[in-house]
């Protein structure tokens, strides 16, 4: 390996009551692309926050050497001055400023506080060319797609004379083509001598651009693997990440599948602002009683939009399509109508759309069916607390009491509260959107068990997920979506990750690509 540009030695970081990192080592060679993988909560983000100075020197143990010199960063500015720049998953761009203004935000070309537009624009134009962005420096960020915004972020990093670029899940929100462009850019920057830390879950990406990979689990370094010319053993990385075999994470089921309970027929939705965009295009699917049906698709495939539109037209503009319950057409034009027909939608975004974080567990659980614990408009708080307590026990929500604020729970426990809320509404059809996103393995397994139980009770369950192993482990049948259309329907027995991925990436422009 080349001389290390970065060495992090036995980094430990403790939050009140929790050891987030213990004795983590990370060494990145000069001009190397180094991947860091690990499940959610493994400590990747915390490690990067230590490196970039978000957690300042003194709040952690261990040592950081950058280009051979010890570093004690007080804040992000300090690390950026040394040439360490982090690009977060949520991009830090101002939507109504131009590309050029964003590139030099906080780092302006100015003389005594007056911006020199000449220097700003010429330098911006050069950087834009360097990252392969085909846009004018005057374009507003809001008018760019996510892929191009990502390139602006990299240009911004280059403007800061970056030596070590940290990318946190850079392709999570990108389509395949944009992802490929971004990965190519990383390799190009590497050729120019810029080192890179790439945090990613996508093993094929890692195989393509990374020179070595460090696997983290539970705040510890598991191993660092150099990637040779033959590529890497994905199995080895996966084993390192999860630390146990994949097979046992899913509950055993003996599905009792009945008649068709829930049908969506020819559903179409336009984008709420841009009416030319068809976000969902004539989607049809059905779920039987006692069946768990998956919907696979990449970001932007229209899965969440389909579900939310069916659930009380909560997204975009409906332009056509019908919903049937037990063969009878039903109206779901408002959320109360949808709930009234026994449909529940468990959102992918529990913090923004699922919970009232300032309120306690019991009131969050009862919210969607308050009428069940009320008489003539008055809530029976005793009954409400009793029911919440029974959910706390059966769902094993870890909290001191049902009066604990949901905002203070961990992701997994929050998800259990959201799920409890909808189970309490006693729906016949449950639409679960990314039910295990951002939660730890233990909580995942518990949620899978709950989902399996719901199906065993005869409910129709639709699971939207980006994790293919999850769909394969849980579902009886899987639909795939791409560009707003249902591109395939595969029974569990015939489905593999590869076959699903082929359907998920099927472009409408080349329908003959179907295998």
């Amino acid at each position: 390996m080349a001389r290390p540009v970065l060495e992090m030695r036995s980094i430990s970081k403790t939050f009140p009551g929790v050891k987030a990192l213990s004795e983590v080592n990370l060494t990145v060679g000069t001009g190397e692309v180094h991947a860091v993988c690990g499940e959610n909560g493994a400590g990747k983000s915390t490690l990067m926050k230590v490196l970039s100075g978000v957690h300042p020197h003194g709040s952690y143990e261990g040592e950081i050497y950058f280009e051979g010199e010890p570093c004690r960063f007080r804040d992000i500015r300090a690390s950026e001055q040394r040439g360490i720049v982090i690009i977060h998953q949520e991009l830090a761009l101002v939507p109504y400023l131009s590309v050029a203004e964003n590139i030099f935000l906080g780092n302006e070309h100015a003389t005594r506080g007056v911006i020199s537009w000449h220097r700003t624009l010429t330098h911006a134009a050069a950087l834009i060319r360097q990252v392969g962005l085909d846009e004018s420096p005057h374009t507003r960020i809001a008018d760019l797609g996510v892929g191009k915004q990502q390139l602006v972020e990299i240009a911004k990093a280059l403007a800061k004379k970056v030596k070590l670029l940290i990318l946190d899940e850079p392709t999570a929100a990108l389509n395949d083509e944009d992802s490929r462009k971004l990965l190519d850019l990383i390799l190009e920057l590497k050729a120019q001598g810029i080192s890179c830390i790439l945090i990613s879950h996508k093993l094929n990406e890692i195989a393509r651009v990374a020179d070595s990979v460090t696997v983290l689990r539970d705040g510890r370094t598991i191993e660092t693997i150099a990637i040779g010319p033959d590529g890497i053993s994905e199995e080895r990385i996966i084993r390192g990440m999860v630390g146990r075999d994949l097979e046992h994470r899913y509950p055993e089921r003996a599905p009792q599948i009945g008649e068709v309970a829930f049908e969506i027929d020819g559903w179409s939705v336009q984008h709420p602002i841009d009416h030319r965009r068809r976000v969902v295009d004539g989607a049809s699917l059905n779920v039987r009683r006692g069946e768990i049906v998956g919907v696979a698709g990449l970001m932007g495939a229209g899965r969440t939009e389909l579900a939310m539109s069916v659930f009380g037209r909560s997204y975009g503009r409906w332009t056509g399509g019908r919903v049937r319950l037990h063969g009878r057409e039903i109206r779901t034009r408002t959320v109360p109508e949808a709930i009234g027909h026994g449909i529940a939608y468990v959102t992918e975004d529990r913090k923004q759309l699922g919970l009232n974080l300032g309120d306690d567990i019991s009131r969050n659980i009862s919210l969607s069916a308050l009428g069940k614990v009320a008489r003539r408009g008055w809530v029976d708080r005793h009954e409400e607390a009793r029911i919440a307590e029974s959910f706390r026990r059966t769902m094993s929500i870890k909290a001191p009491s049902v009066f604990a604020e949901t905002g203070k729970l961990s992701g997994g426990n929050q998800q259990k509260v959201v799920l409890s809320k909808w189970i309490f509404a006693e729906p016949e059809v449950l639409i679960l959107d990314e039910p295990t996103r951002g939660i730890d393995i233990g909580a995942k397994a518990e949620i899978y068990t709950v989902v399996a139980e719901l199906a065993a009770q005869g409910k129709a369950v639709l699971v939207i997920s980006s994790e293919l192993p999850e769909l394969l482990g849980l579902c009886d049948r899987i639909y795939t979506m791409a560009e707003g259309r249902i591109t395939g329907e595969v029974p569990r027995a015939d489905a593999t990750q590869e076959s699903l991925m082929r359907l998920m990436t099927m472009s409408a422009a080349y329908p003959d690509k179907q295998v």
Partner: protein
Amino acid sequence: MAQIETTPKTAPSTPETARRSSAGAVLARALRGNLRQYGMLVALALIVLLFQFWTDGILLQPLNITNLIQQNGYILILAIGMMIVIIAGHIDLSVGSLAAFVGAAAAVMMVEHRMPWPVALVAALLIGALAGAWQGFWIAYLGIPSFIVTLAGMLLFRGGTQILLQGQSVAPFPKGFQNISSGFLPAVGPHTDYHNLTLLLGLSVLAVAILQEVRGRRRAASYGLEPLPAGLFLVKLGAITASVVAFTLLLASYHGVPIVLLILGVLLVGFGYVMRNSILGRHTYAIGGNEAAARLSGVKSKRVVFLAFVNMGVLAALAGLVFAARLNAGTPQAGINFELEAIAAAFIGGASASGGVGTVLGALTGGLVLGVLNNGMSLVGVGTDYQQVIKGLVLLAAVGFDVYNKRKAGA
């Protein structure tokens, strides 16, 4: 991401640890849990004690207490409605103008058109409801920010007041109407040194309060919550008893319970119960806390917001009537800056600027903090210039303290 997922690993306290921990620790924990609510009550008590000492005991004299209630009644009424609007995540800047407008309308009805005062009163409350519905319509159904709609309302109703009154005061009102603000419960029964009905009322309030506390304690135990230790619970009951008895005797040794206090009591109990125990109240908190989540849970958010503004309109009308009755005139300058006092009261009393948090009792507490400060500072001769400076600092300190606490708790 890691710290979000892993922070709240504090072990649930078992009964054993509860029994072992000292009373002080339990008290500290109980206080911490309800810091904002108890905190403000404690602050109010301290301010009262401070001025009681400073004014050589004038503050808590029966006459002054009665004055304090009658001087602040209309602000407290507004504060209740404002608290609900703020809980729903909105604001209402028009309430001062609306109070003036309704007061003016009532004056015109009673003085110029010789309407019987009860009819005028009901009509005035209806006008308030209509004005609230007007603003609620723009805010809830057309999605125009409440700040702008009610800023427009502030101008609209102020102008309307001036048009109605032609720039002049309209007076005087019938005695019955004036009593809303300056009347007392009637004196009945045998002659004692105290006001009989007031004693009776005080006793029943005490009985209900103790009953509620005992029931609450029994219920807490049945949820597996750690109840206050028996000793502390008795202390709490003692404190409640002492304050209710003292307050009752204070009032009973003068003219008895002012009608305004009766109105406030009914509003406190009624709205307190609605906000805590009704589906509508619960939905108000849910919308203010996270509107998107509430909507996806089937809450009809537009209707709830609309009703919050209708209610605010009615309460603004009531406040306007109480104020007009106190002045015994409808005047074009009535209600100026009332909206600011009411908003300040709500925030001092524990409302959150982002919505979803607050209680009706808090609104009253906040309003009383401001009222006692006004009254106390006037008594010791602080000029209104310095009074404003101090009230401004108190508002900032109360909210700043809350933000600081939240950050500490969330870190």
